[in-house]
Each structure stands twice: as C-alpha cells, then as structure tokens.
C-alpha cells in the first residue's frame, strides 16, 4: 500500500492505495468520480482523459501513485459555480455528442487544444483530437464545437 495525496477538482484527497492502482480506477472507484470513462485500457481512445497539473493525460495509463502531489481536474471539476465551461456549452450547442461516452475526454482534450492554440484551424482541431476516438459523431460536430468554443472564449 502507498500513501498518496492528490488534489482533485480543488479538494485535497488522501488515500492509501495499492501501488498498481490506475488513476482512472482511483477516480472512479475510490472517489466516485465516474464522469471519467474507460474505453480501451491502452491509451488509444482518450475516454479517460483528465487534466494533471493543467495537462490533458489519459488516466488509464497513469498509476494513482504517479499522480501523488499533483492537481487533477476531471470533467466534474470543469463547470464553475454551476455554470458549464464554455467548451461544455459549445458541445451542447453544437450537438458535439451522441451517446456521451467519449465526451468527458473530448472536452478535456479540447481544453488543452485551446490552451495552446486559442484560434485553431479546423485541421489543427482535428489533429489535436487524434488521440480521442468517438464512434458516434463522425467528429464533424465535435470539431464544430471546439471551433465554436474558441470563438466564444475569444482567445482565453
């Protein structure tokens, strides 16, 4: 067992975990933050994406102990004061999801895309999303959502 302390969505959480416990399972099973989904187990689909210290990371390939001392944001922590993040809003406005299973990961990856490139082209958005798989939307409306969010956020 290993002691860890991770700040999750702004709250410090202490735990004693099996060293091999994956971060995604820690979040889902121990903390009940089930908005982070598992789609592939092998870092291919991006459904499990969370932000670790401001960077989008696939939590199915991170051990909980590796995240010790870091600051983790999951989809549950993205909305502020009960108001959706502009990217969440853009996904809603632009029908950027269907079954919703890939969506948390798509949104957190989009946060990262816009952080580095506040005014991306369509091609840049598509490349930015290459690590996330969606089987429902054909990406058309996801790309549209990210571009709309970029507009709405005006470079912020």
């Amino acid at each position, binding site marked *: 067992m290993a002691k860890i302390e991770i700040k999750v969505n702004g709250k410090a959480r202490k735990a004693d975990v*099996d060293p*091999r*416990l994956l971060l995604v399972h820690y979040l*889902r*099973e121990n903390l*009940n*933050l*089930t*908005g*982070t*989904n*598992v*789609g*592939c*187990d*092998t870092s*291919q*689909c991006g*459904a499990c994406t969370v932000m670790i210290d401001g960077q989008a990371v696939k939590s199915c390939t991170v051990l909980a102990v590796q995240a010790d001392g870091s600051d983790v944001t*999951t*989809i*549950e922590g*993205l*909305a502020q004061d009960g108001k*959706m993040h502009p990217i*969440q809003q853009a*996904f*809603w*406005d632009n*029908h950027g*999801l*269907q*079954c*919703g*299973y*890939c*969506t*948390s990961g798509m*949104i957190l990856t989009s946060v990262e895309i816009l952080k580095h490139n506040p005014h991306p082209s*369509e*091609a840049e*958005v*598509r*490349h930015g*999303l*290459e690590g*996330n*798989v*969606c*089987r*429902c*939307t*054909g*990406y*058309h*409306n*996801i*790309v*549209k959502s990210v571009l709309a969010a970029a507009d709405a956020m005006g470079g912020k």
Partner: protein
Amino acid sequence: MGLDTFGKGIKRREDPRLITGKGTYVDNMKMVGMAHAYILRSPYAHARIIKIDVAKAKAQPGVLDVFVGKDMEALGSIPCGWSHPGLITPKHPVVAIDEVNYVGDPVAVIVAEDRYIARDAADLIDVEYDPLPAVIDLEKAVASREQARVAAAHADVHHAGAHHDEAAAGEAIEQTVGAEVKAALASQEAAGPHLVHNEAAHNTAFTWTIGDKAKTDEAFAKAAHVTTLRIRNNRIQASAIEPRAALASYDAASEGITLWMTSQNPHIHRLLAAAFVLGIPEHKLRVIAPDVGGGFGSKIFVYGEEIIVVWASRKLGVPVKWASERREAYISDAHGRDHVTTAEMAFDAGGRITGLRVKTLANLGAYLSTFSTAVPTYLYGTLLSGQYDIPTIFCEVLGVLTNTVPVDAVRGAGRPEATFLLERLMDTAARELKMEPTAIRRKNFIQPNQFPYQTAVALQYDSGNYEVALDKALEMVGYADLRKQQAEARKQGKLIGIGVSTYLEACGLAPSALVGSLGAGAGQWESALVRVMPTGTINVYTGSHSHGQGHETTFAQVVSRELGVPYENINILHGDTETLPYGWGTYGSRSAAVGGSALVKASQRVREKAIKIAAHLLEANEADVELVEGKFQVKGAPSRSKSWFDIGLQSHLAHNLPQGMEPGLEFTAFYDPSNFVYPFGAHICVTEVDADTGQVQIKRFIAVDDCGNRINPMIIDGQVHGGLACGIGQALYEEAAYTDEGQPLFGSMMDYALPRAHFLPSFELGHTVTPCPHNPLGVKGIGETGAIGSPPAVVNSVVDALAHLGVTHIDMPLTPEKVWRAMNAM
C-alpha cells in the same frame, strides 16, 4: 421552447448530464457487497478441454468463487432468435464445457472482491487443451460441400445413363459413385476434415435462396453484356466506445433479480435470458439499461456474460458485476459483415439491367448469435434490387460456421453488404459499357410513377424519388466541373477519384406477421404509454431505447406536437422492463418509424379522452371543442377554454367527469406498421490517392439522404455523420482479420484501426423529403444510411482514381498497402 419544436433542430435535453460527467453507465454503478466477475477465455480457435484446475485461483484471498462450464451445465443454450427451414443450430453453452470454438470462448469465471484480484486469479487457472484444427477461411470451410455437390452431380449423370440395363450396371454405378464420394472425402481430408460442429455438415448452418433461378438463368443466357465481380465484404467490429457491462443483484426475499446492462433492447434481453437460458419466470427478472455508450448493433444480442452475472449473483448472494475490457470486447462482442460473394449482372445492349445473380458465403462465426441468421438473408438478399428496376434476381446464401467470434448485425446489417455489391457492379458495368456512372444509374432507376414497386426479391417499396436525390448530390459537389478538374489533375500526375453511390434501405423493422413468417422469433411492433399527470405534465414510457440517438428530445417533440403540451412538460422514460410497457427496442432504425408511431397512437387516444372531459367541463358539445395551441376551447368562443392542467387534474380527481367515464388519463398503444420504411439517398466521395504510398485521403464527402419527414434535423445530421464515419471506417481502415489458425489480429484499439478526427473531412449534407406514406409521422430511418451508402462511394472513388492504371476492384479495407499493390499491379 414551448409548443413549436417539431421539425426544429433543438438542442438535446440529455446532454447536460452527459457533458458534466453525470451520466449513469452500467460500469459506474456500485452496490454494497458487490463482487467483480472476470472471464477467462480460450486462447485457441478450436480445442478440446481436457481439464481445468481452478484450485489455486479459488484459494486466493479476495476470491469468492471460480466457476467452469460444468457448474453451469443446467443452463439453457444461448438461443438464436431467427430460424430458417432446416437450420442447424449448434448448442451454445454460456461457458464452454468440453470444447472451445473460437479465441475468446469463455472457459472459466472468477468472482472476486475487486477486478484486480479477479484478473490475477485468472492467471492461476490451469487449463489443459487439446488443440483441434481450426476452420477460418470461408471458402475452405465449405470446400467439402462443393466437392460433394460435384460428386453428386456426376452420380446423377451416371444414374441417368444407366436406365436400360439397371441390373447389370447397378454394381458398376455403386462403384463409380462410391469412388467419387471417396475421392471427394479424401480431398476433403487432405484439405482438412474440419468441422466446427459435427452436426453441421460442410460447416453449413443453412442454405437460403430467394428469387427465380430459371428466369434469372434465362436472362443471363440472353444478355448482351454480363458484369461479374467477386467481392469480400470485410469483417468489422461495432466498437462502441463504452464496452459491454452487466451488473446483477439477486434478492433472496423475493427471488427476483435486477440486471443492469448495456442493452439496446431490455425487453428482448429479459425474454431470452429468462425463458431460454436461465429458466426462470420472466417476472422474476428485471432488466434496466441506463445510459448506454453506443450500441451499433453489438448490444442487441444475448451474450453469455449477462447470464453469468445473474447466475453468479444468485449462487453467491451478492451483486456481481462484469465489465468488458476492450481487448475482451474485440473477441466477445459479435462481429459484422464478412461475406464472400460472386455477383453477376446481366445487361441488354442499351445498358439496362436484365438480371442479377448472386452467390454469397456468409460467415456466422462459431455459434449462431441472436439475429445472425436474418442478417445475410432477409436483411441482405431482399435488398438486392436497390434503387433499380431489375426484372429478375436470384440469390443464394450459405450460412457458414467457422472458428471465429459469432457474427451478427452491425450498423446497417445486410443492407451495407447488398448496397456495396450493387454499387460496385454498377460502376464496373458502366466502365465496361463505356457509360457515365450516373447515366447507367439513371437508366435503371425505379421511376416515381412505379410506386408502390414490387421488387423481384419480396419487398414492396412504398415511395421514392431517386433521381432528385442524385441530382442534388451532383449539384452540391459541382460534378461537371469536378470531372474537368480531375482530368487536369491527372495530367499533373495527381490521382483524384470521384465515386458515386445510390442506396436504398429497408428499415423500421416490422411488420410482425411478416417477420414472423420469415422466421423471426420476435414481434416487431413497438409500444408506448402516455400518462397525463394531475398537473397536466406528461410522462411517456417507450419500448424504444436510446443509446445516443436522442429519444428524450425527439420523442418529446413528437408528443408535444400531438398534445399541444409544452416540450418542457414532457418527460420521456425508457430502458426499464419493470416500469415500461413491453417493447422490442432500438436497432435497424426502427425507433422513430415504429416507436414514434406508437407514441402518436397513444397520444391520439389521450387527446380524444381529454376532449371529452373538456367538453363536459365547458358544457359544450364534444364536436365543438378543439385543441388549439395547447388549450381546449369552444369553436368560435376561444375565451371558453380549459388547460391541460384543468384536464389533468379533473381526470385524476374524478369529481366532475362525464357520466360513466373511467378516472385517469393514460393510454398504452401498440403499433405494428404495415410495411418497412425505405429511406434512400445518393452519396458522392472525392478522394486523392498518394501515387507513391497508396494512402487514400478523402477530400470531400457529400451525402444526400431522404428519411421522410424530419423531427429534429440537427439530430438527423448527427446520425448521418456517425454513419458515414462507420462506413468510411469499413472502406478504408477497419478489419477484424484472423490468421489461418484463428488468432485475431485485432487485439486492441492499437491493431483495429478506427477512424480518427484527422482521417475524415467535414461532411456536406443535403436532403430531400419523401414522406413515408404508411406511418402517422411520415418518417423513415436515418441511423444506418451513412454506413450503407458510404463504403461503395469510397471504393468507387478510389477505383475511379486508379482506373486508368488498369485497376478494376480492390477489396475493403483500402489500406495503403493494398492500394499500392493494386496500382503497381502486384
């Protein structure tokens, strides 16, 4: 949003919960004392199980128990829900008992306190296998059948010639026949005497034909031109991003079981699991399908895992959950497609089709999955007329058993295979006959004045206007200009292709009597319950199930229009067998056409009764009361009116109802349509092939679809986008390929290539509207059209780009290697 939402692309009400991480998918669920099941699967495609030693695994701390096939022997066989005359149905145990038949066949079940412990324990199970030869290749699987057929034909000839001196020749004939059969058996032996199941001779579960063989043969004998193609329709995987999962909780007090599972049709799951496998009364099993992360067909069927958790929960007295890993999903979710087909099309001198002859080997995998026998037959053979007026068709399908994962419906199911074959034939014929690909299609389209149109393969199309959709697609792509640009590009050594496909599908699965006569073990109607609450809001219960299709939004739009109740005041409930009327679920693009029509029917009954109540309260004649903008008012005196609140409340209080009227205001309706629905459209794909690498890039994709009346255009477009991505995935990237020994080459998402955002363009969509004439909404299906129309558009485009290099056909998926080899004639 109010009353006026029908036909508008309003935002989905299910989204906020999914966007903020508050969805309830099965694997999110936890229960007190819950244990986790892990399934050990066969590493062999075909083997006898000599012995299984589970002692070490069982002894692990945290392991509750370990089960093998023998423990569950009393369970029924996993059923196939669609029968054909003479169908051979191999027994399909939930967990393999003496023999495994594909890589992935369950061998043992470990139930432990958590999934890590369960997985560890699985490594400690010792299984001794005696490997058997595996049957993988479709043509090899039935080779012995062909040999036997040849031998039998010879024997017939000998017999015919032997008539005059039977007695003398008798022995000689016996010897000849005996020798031939022996020779056939010997060569079969040499090729491998392999049977997947001993009861299925020649590995053939069924032989199915449709159409008129003699008439078709005659058309071919007289044909001015015959185009022939041999096509492999590649095996694909549905790949819903949410893996399948099931959680069962047994309640000893009531002996009832609740099963949460990833299901597209909870009632079908309950029926088949309870009655056919578990042998428990149906009312003791409650199936709940909460949020489901995509289905694409793969979550229709009955699988062993959901039975395992129910069985284990009952046995151990704790809730038991199984959640598939992706690696596992690829070898346990049913696969799709996998046909080898020889198709011939006969033409007269003017380019008019005079006949179509098709022979298909359809892979069924190791066992018959729930709808597997319907997919390559009634959902395929009956679609072989497409949009074309074909005077005679004959199609023969062999359902073939192999040592591979069972094959069943994946998005489109049968219709993509039929369309692919037709549209490849049309393009190939056009090239051979030196016609424009659009001209040959126009020449053969069924014309608007021919509806209802009776095809040569059973279906009667209700309505359509095919040329208009094609014209629209050509206009959107700027066809004439594009052909010029293509010629220019070619001069500069650029390989640009333009591929056209026109498709038709039959969906909205029903009518029940018809599908019953064809072998379905299911009714195909749908039900809905519309309940007016005392405050005038509405609860709607539907037998359809939404797993991304947005029913909570579109169905509310439908009921809002029918009842004049504000959209916000309508609540759609689905996915729970305990609280809903019976339903057959969501697949085959049946939700709007069949489920939506049931809603209309139930709503109409509610409205009729509401008008009676209103008339009574307003002291008016029933005939004088009308529902206008959500208010019941007296004609000519709009100030005399009652609201839904008044009606709802009065129907429940029942203090002041018409004499003899029952209290309450709710109706359940069962809707069984009179025909399938027939969406159609035209797709155009523009590709560029890299001359050095064979890499295909899609430059533009235009899809014009006609799904009749449109409830929510935004959702319709989304469905088309997703379907296109699936179809393009099949055409360019996806294949669930096996080695000759039956080892899967698609172990994870690293090996199975799904389309990613940068592989695809933004799609350009258009539509035409030809309302369905026989359902009250005038709607057809849209969920599968993208996957049906796009694969031939892509392949036609690539072949068009390479035709001048002598390329006539490439089998999907068009990987760079295959394309490169084709263009370099290797």
